[in-house]
């Protein structure tokens, strides 16, 4: 089983996050970054699959030099090797361009040994668009089974991937033939933390660094100038407004229940 996990290096959500004043892109320099927490679930799920059978987990990221930390964390958790695509021209890329770079990188990884499964998080914790997995599957011509709260692999590399996708009122069970792309939610597992042996072992694990030229991508296809979307302006979130007071006229309970249902709190 040859698994590629796509991960993203994101600004720490605990810290104060800002945009660059010059081009309205996310400021990644003046804030501590880390492996997107939603991607930890993807790494964990891939590790569980190979630990239950056999195979290898490759972590792939596209990002600036610091993004190596995201790969390192995944290697410390137990992934076998890393691929880091870093090129100045990628700065400011939107989801469309990101999926292009990821797709070409996965094809290149597949030249060595065919990729049986691509696992991603459900979204990044910074952009939170959640569209890259589907775009990536489209570019690779793979079935996309997304938002998995449970994943079962049957029959190994030539077999199937079956997921549970939890909706508001029902749970779907979806099966795809491998190779396939699966995106996972934060309900799927409890990501491990690196053991000291994992931290030591990660120092010796191979990480390949590729630029756009290695993937045959023309710089004009990516970056801020090629982006289909861009941030025009941003403003700080206004201070939280005062809550709505619902007077109880005998129907307070119903109103409360209606509010909770409407906002999907229950």
């Amino acid at each position, binding site marked *: 089983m040859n698994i590629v996990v796509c991960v993203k290096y994101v600004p720490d959500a605990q810290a104060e996050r800002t945009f660059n004043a010059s081009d309205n892109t996310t400021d990644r320099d003046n804030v501590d970054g880390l492996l997107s927490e939603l991607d930890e679930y993807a790494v964990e799920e891939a590790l569980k699959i190979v630990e239950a059978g056999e195979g290898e987990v490759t972590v792939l990221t596209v990002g600036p030099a610091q993004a190596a930390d995201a790969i*390192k964390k995944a290697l410390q958790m137990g992934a076998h090797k890393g691929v880091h695509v870093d090129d100045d021209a990628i700065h400011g890329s939107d989801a469309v361009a990101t999926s292009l770079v990821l797709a070409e990188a996965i094809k290149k990884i597949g030249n060595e040994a065919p990729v049986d499964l691509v696992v991603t998080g459900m979204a990044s914790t910074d952009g939170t668009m959640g569209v890259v997995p589907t775009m990536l599957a489209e570019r690779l011509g793979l079935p996309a089974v997304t938002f998995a709260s449970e994943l079962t692999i049957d029959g190994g590399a030539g077999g199937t991937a079956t997921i549970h996708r939890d909706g508001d009122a029902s749970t779907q069970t979806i099966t795809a033939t491998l190779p396939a792309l699966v995106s996972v939610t934060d309900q799927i597992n409890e990501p491990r*933390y*690196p*053991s*000291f*042996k994992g931290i030591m072992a990660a120092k010796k694990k191979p990480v390949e660094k590729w630029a756009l030229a290695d993937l045959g991508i023309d710089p004009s296809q990516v970056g801020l100038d090629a982006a289909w979307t861009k941030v025009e302006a941003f403003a700080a979130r206004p201070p939280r407004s005062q809550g709505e007071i619902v007077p109880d006229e005998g129907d307070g309970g119903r109103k409360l229940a209606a509010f909770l249902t409407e906002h999907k709190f229950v």
Partner: protein
Amino acid sequence: MKTSTPPPFDPNDPAGIDDLLSADEKAVRESVRQLCAQRVDPYVADWFERGTIDDIRGLTKELGSLGVLGMHLEGYGCAGMSATEYGLACLELEASDSGLRSLVSVQGSLAMFAIWRWGSEEQKTQWLPPMAAGEAIGCFGLTEPDVGSDPGSMRTRARRDGDDWVLDGRKMWITNGSIADVAVVWAQTDEGIRGFVVPTTTPGFSAPEIKHKQSLRASVTSELVLDAVRLPADAVLPEVRGLKGPLSCLNEARFGIVWGALGAARSSLQAALSYAGERTQFGRPISGFQLTQAKLVDMSLEYTKGSLLALHLARRKDAGTLRPEQVCLGKLNNVRESLEICRTARTILGANGISLEYPVIRHMNNLESVLTYEGTVEMHTLVLGQAITGQSAFR
């Protein structure tokens, strides 16, 4: 001169000491913190109140899986981490509870270190791998009911009977004693003080638990009773004679305490800072009052200074240049100041400061033990007094 904007101020690290740590050191710290957050923090106040740790064997195995037990030792299943990483781990453990850090200190720095440093190859192969994995628990018997700071006057004796050794005596205040699979016991012999590796199933060995503690309640403390405990010739630690044996182990454990005590201080300081921001009196948060700010700033200063000292001593230990007197200096300062931080935090929390709903009184009571064990304030003062003046005031 650079004019770029400095990074934002971090109230939890006012001097920015984190910059001095490598990414791997931070990763070690983060893993220990995650284990503690999941496995210890939600339960520890209850353990303290009831005076017992639930599933202590399971917890010890999880600490072993992470790699914490004997983490600074090389080989025999140990993780082979640096002294700095060991210190960071101790800090995170003790930020949860001094009892947890004590379990780890005694296992790794006392029992395992004694075998690793002074044991035979057979002793190391038999005991270190299961101890590193947390499958076997160790304890360390030096202190006796009537013998504390002056271990040279210990009464526990080991005499030869043919090839065998026979041990008689009592040890007191022994962490992990009642749950241990193996005890490293120090005893007087005709050849001076020697160490023995005693499987706790040996006839004549018993370890009743000490009750009625008001400190380190989330930790097992025991008496060791050695009643004609017969051991084979190869039970003795072959590579050391004299007080140097136990003192070398204590030096290891004290180093962990230099860091660990700061964990208790950090937890109390953060609790006080958060409480002061939320508690309103006279129409505003008490963190806005000068007296409270003076307390918080003093606590933060001492925590910062203690952290720098701990890190400096760790770097020296990693470089092989750390002297025992320097460990005394670190233990003396950091436990004393951490206890003061906890006591001050207690006053900021007012009446809530005495409740186990907050971590403060638990840390404060725990540090009363830490202040005394592994060398009292008085002994560390006298050791430093001798080192500074050249005159011994106690021998």
